[in-house]
């Protein structure tokens, strides 16, 4: 189909650094570790890379990697700062466009996150120098009231959902506990050895009601990377290719002003998901699993609804009864997610989805996984989604 990105690109390499709270490595060293692992996984050499899409954030640039990799003729670079944390999945979309257009052959997407030892998210939201797009509204109209941290403005949405649809802390806690159980099965999950019960969740302190501490994602250091190429080139490489069957990005409206949206629940993903599924020729119910940007428990529930796994307002009941656990009808965040593996802005979710679709996920393997989705969330509700197939 002309103009479509359907099945026109493949993820052929994945790599991750060790995820930790605190690291002896620089941003670039972390990014190089993940990138070299991804390039090697693909069976490529660093000099084969001819395009680098830097999702954004933190301290590395395409030029840094190119200098280290001896890439004397880097053909294409891009950055997706406007997407906030959704920049990672949007970077795959940009890579696919560059490949389809013939601008590049092997695209590296490295992403470094230093949420533990670097600047905290809440310290950058009101700072224009942080390049976080909503900084003006936050600085001038939220911060005079001490409202600038992601758990604060995201919990506005959560509270409103609780009021309109009766969503409960048991629903949210089930998400937190499920992510933790999945993390126990992942050797590179920061919370691997820290089991959690629903009681632990309920008894954890309020950060900002309705969010407990255990509604909030981890702050960790680490990097992840993927290599994307065309299907023709993918066939010659080391791993079974994972196809980008559908991919799209979207924005809330107005993007930088949560309070004055018509409703609190229409987000970038609401617009992007139908585009991505239509491109893939699939529906949300065809998925074998979903890896969803779980910055907070409610934002996971909200994306479950907005990507179309259930109707708006039904996310609470949807997550109950083991449905989102490994072995359930729709396993979600099989690696533990941002809540219990590490916060790499869903680059780890992309890596996990590829692992699942290659059937390399060991104890976490979703049986016969053929089709999976990765949803990413950023800023005040930007969203992107990749529908990936084996």
């Amino acid at each position: 189909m002309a103009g479509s990105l359907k099945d026109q690109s493949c993820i052929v390499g994945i790599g991750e650094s060790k995820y930790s709270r605190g690291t002896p490595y620089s941003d670039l060293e972390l990014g190089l570790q993940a990138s070299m692992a991804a390039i090697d996984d693909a069976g490529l050499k660093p000099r084969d890379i001819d395009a680098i899409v830097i999702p954004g954030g933190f301290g590395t640039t395409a030029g840094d990697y190119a200098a280290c990799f001896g890439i004397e003729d880097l053909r294409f670079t891009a950055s997706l700062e406007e997407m906030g944390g959704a920049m990672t999945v949007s970077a795959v979309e940009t890579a696919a466009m560059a490949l389809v257009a013939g601008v590049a052959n092997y695209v590296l997407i490295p992403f470094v996150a230093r949420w533990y030892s670097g600047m905290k998210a809440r310290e950058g939201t009101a700072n224009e120098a942080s390049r976080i797009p909503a900084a003006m509204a936050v600085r001038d109209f939220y911060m005079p009231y001490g409202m600038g941290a992601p758990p604060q403005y995201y919990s506005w949405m959560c509270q409103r959902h609780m009021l309109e649809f009766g969503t409960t802390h048991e629903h949210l806690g089930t998400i937190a506990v499920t992510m933790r159980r999945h993390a126990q099965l992942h050797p590179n999950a920061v919370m691997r050895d820290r089991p959690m019960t629903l009681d632990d969740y309920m008894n954890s302190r309020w950060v900002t009601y309705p969010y407990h501490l255990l509604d909030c994602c981890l702050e960790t250091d680490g990097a992840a990377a993927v290599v994307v190429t065309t299907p023709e080139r993918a066939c010659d490489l080391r791993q079974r290719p994972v196809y980008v069957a559908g991919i799209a990005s979207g924005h809330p409206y107005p993007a930088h002003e949560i309070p004055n949206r018509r409703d609190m629940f229409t987000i970038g993903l609401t617009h992007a998901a139908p585009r991505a599924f239509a491109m893939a020729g699939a529906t949300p119910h065809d998925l074998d699993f979903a890896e969803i940007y779980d910055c907070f428990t409610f934002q996971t529930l909200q994306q479950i609804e907005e990507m179309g796994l259930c109707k708006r307002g039904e996310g609470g009941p949807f997550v109950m009864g083991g449905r989102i656990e490994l072995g359930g009808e729709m396993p979600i965040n099989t690696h533990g997610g941002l809540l219990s593996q590490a916060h790499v802005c869903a680059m780890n979710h992309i890596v996990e989805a590829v692992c699942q679709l290659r059937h390399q996920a060991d104890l976490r393997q979703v049986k016969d996984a053929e089709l999976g989705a990765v949803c990413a969330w950023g800023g005040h509700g930007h969203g992107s989604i990749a529908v990936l197939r084996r």
Partner: protein
Amino acid sequence: MAGHSADYGKPLPLMRGYTKEFYDFCRNRELRFQRCTRCGAWRHTPRPMCGDCQSLEWKWEKVAGRGKVYTWTVTFQPLYPQFKQDVPYAGVIVELEEGPRMVSWVTGIDPMQLKADMPVEVWFDDVTPEVTIPKFRPLKF
């Protein structure tokens, strides 16, 4: 009570452009929002063009200052050291009768007693000689 800016110690808006105009009205005990003079749409936070009709014509139109609680969060952990003395405090989205919503505080009530649609009215807190922050309190009948 107005103190010196240096004593206040909490984050202040950057007083320039539309932001300064908004807060200068507050110092004069007026809550005003941008309103399109072509199609009548209100907008907040400020921007130069109407998203509904793309008109550049607008004025700062006064609202009555009454509204209701739309949603809120009650912050217990001092995420910002400048607000350590204030926890727990609620960041409330107030929906004004005229339509626009804004972030504020509802004072004079235990934040865990906030309710959806609770009627509130604006009051003006002169936090420094230069800056007045609009806050709300429960509206008494």
